């Protein structure tokens, strides 16, 4: 992928949320050629003043079928209804702690359109009657922090909404996990927790992804659900692009300068799902279309795997990475994920039992406090079905020739 190709044409006509960005292959969303952040005046000129937030917005959210863009794609309207029905002091969190190593759409959005995200946060806080409004970032995301500080300082104070707190989370894969954020916002450690019982009247926390909030800010201004998707595509570096949801994966990669078809793509991130290229090439970059195929765009990551690489070998490294990023609280995750990584690694060099690998994966599923282990088990299951030919060859004792990895080495 050449960097000039990212400017692209054709399939990306309307850009409601951001300008395409090219970034290094990992680390915070620091672009190689930064687009300046939208200031308060140009934000007002582009979108007009922020409407007040009222519970009536739920109907608009319902119509738009907006889902959570952090990866889980839970309908926002359902979250709002549950929150409106509850009692107890409410903290609303804008989650900008994008933790998938490839993902950079949220960081890019915060750098380019901080005011739109703040609008969404204040709107939601007003509509749901929140006492606190928090923006939660990775501790190392200095660019997003700078953009938000400038935006908050230049923004006139709005009487009805709570003031916005900027909180730095740890630099960790699980720093963006909702129950960890809830605990951290209440002064505890940023570690995933299990809620044992709903206690009416207890303090509550609602976590929304920053892209979700930006889309809420557009919806509240009657900008119809935009029909665009923000995706981070891994190539020779990363590209964050906003595409029409009708764009197919073939068009997406061609537009970014891919000349050869990959053998497969990893969708959603390292805790996502593999899909063979023949399965997704004609599909559109749209959550609903992917859900019908049993896939998901997750946090909007598209990582193509070149035809020459070994998917099993690559997945073994990804699972090793996920194992290293366990919060080390729950037994099934602490012991299960390294076991999965070991079995996959053994499979890659031609000596493992696929049945036991899948049994281990199934025995871990759903047994952590958070969904971190589930991401790994689904990744393993999707790798075994997507790279079935490699699995058959490796199980028959033929290790992969190169053992080369398609993607940059991960810091474990």
């Amino acid at each position, binding site marked *: 992928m050449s960097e000039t190709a990212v400017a692209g044409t054709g399939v990306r006509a309307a850009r409601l949320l951001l300008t395409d960005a090219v970034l290094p292959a990992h680390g915070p969303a620091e672009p190689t050629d930064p687009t300046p952040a939208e200031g308060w005046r140009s934000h007002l000129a582009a979108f007009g003043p922020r409407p007040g937030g009222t519970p009536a917005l739920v109907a608009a959210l319902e119509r738009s079928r907006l889902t959570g863009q952090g990866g889980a794609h839970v309908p926002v309207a359902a979250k709002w209804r549950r929150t409106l029905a509850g009692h107890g002091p409410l903290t609303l969190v804008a989650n900008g702690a994008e933790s998938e190593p490839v993902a950079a759409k949220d960081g890019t959005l915060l750098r380019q359109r901080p005011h739109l995200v703040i609008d969404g946060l204040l709107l939601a806080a007003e509509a749901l009657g929140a006492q606190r409004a928090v923006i939660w970032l990775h501790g190392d995301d200095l660019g997003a922090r700078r953009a938000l500080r400038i935006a908050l300082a230049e923004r006139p104070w709005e009487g009805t909404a709570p003031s916005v707190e900027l909180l730095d989370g740890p630099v960790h894969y699980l720093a963006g996990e909702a129950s960890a954020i809830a605990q951290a916002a209440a002064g505890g450690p940023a570690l995933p927790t299990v809620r044992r*019982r709903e206690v009416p009247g207890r303090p509550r926390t609602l976590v929304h992804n920053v892209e979700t909030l930006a889309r809420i800010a557009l919806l509240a201004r009657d900008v119809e659900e935009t029909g665009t998707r923000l995706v981070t595509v891994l190539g020779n570096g990363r590209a964050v692009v906003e595409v029409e949801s009708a764009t197919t994966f073939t068009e997406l990669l061609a537009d970014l300068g891919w000349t050869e078809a990959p053998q497969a793509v990893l969708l959603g991130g390292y805790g996502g799902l593999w899909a063979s290229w023949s399965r997704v090439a004609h599909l559109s970059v749209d959550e609903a279309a992917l859900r019908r195929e049993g896939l998901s765009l997750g946090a909007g990551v598209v990582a193509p795997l070149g035809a020459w690489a070994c998917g099993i070998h690559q997945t073994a490294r990804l699972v090793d990475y996920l194992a290293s990023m366990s919060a080390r609280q729950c037994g099934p995750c602490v*012991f299960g994920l390294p076991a999965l990584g070991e079995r996959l690694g053994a499979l890659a060099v031609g000596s493992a039992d696929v049945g036991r690998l899948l049994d281990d994966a199934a025995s871990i599923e759903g047994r952590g406090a958070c969904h971190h282990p589930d991401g790994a088990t689904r990744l393993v299951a999707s790798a075994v079905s997507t790279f079935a030919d490699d699995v058959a060859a490796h199980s028959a004792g033929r290790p992969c020739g190169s053992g080369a990895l398609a993607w940059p080495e991960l810091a474990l």
Partner: protein
Amino acid sequence: MNRAPSAGLVLRVDPVACEGVGLCAQVGDRVVDLDRWGYPVLEPLGSPADVRAARRAVRACPRRALWVEEVDPGL
């Protein structure tokens, strides 16, 4: 709880609190198995005997990581 005791009851574990001591599996036959690392795998409570076993497991846990919860059958 004077309705059929197994209706809508589930045994749950807080995996953060659980340290894999394993007493639950000794007293909670049929409803608690241990995985190969010694952590509990919980089965559905199908009969009053299962519920009694689950309550024994809850009482046995030195980390207070287990509980029996009534679930809304509408969910």
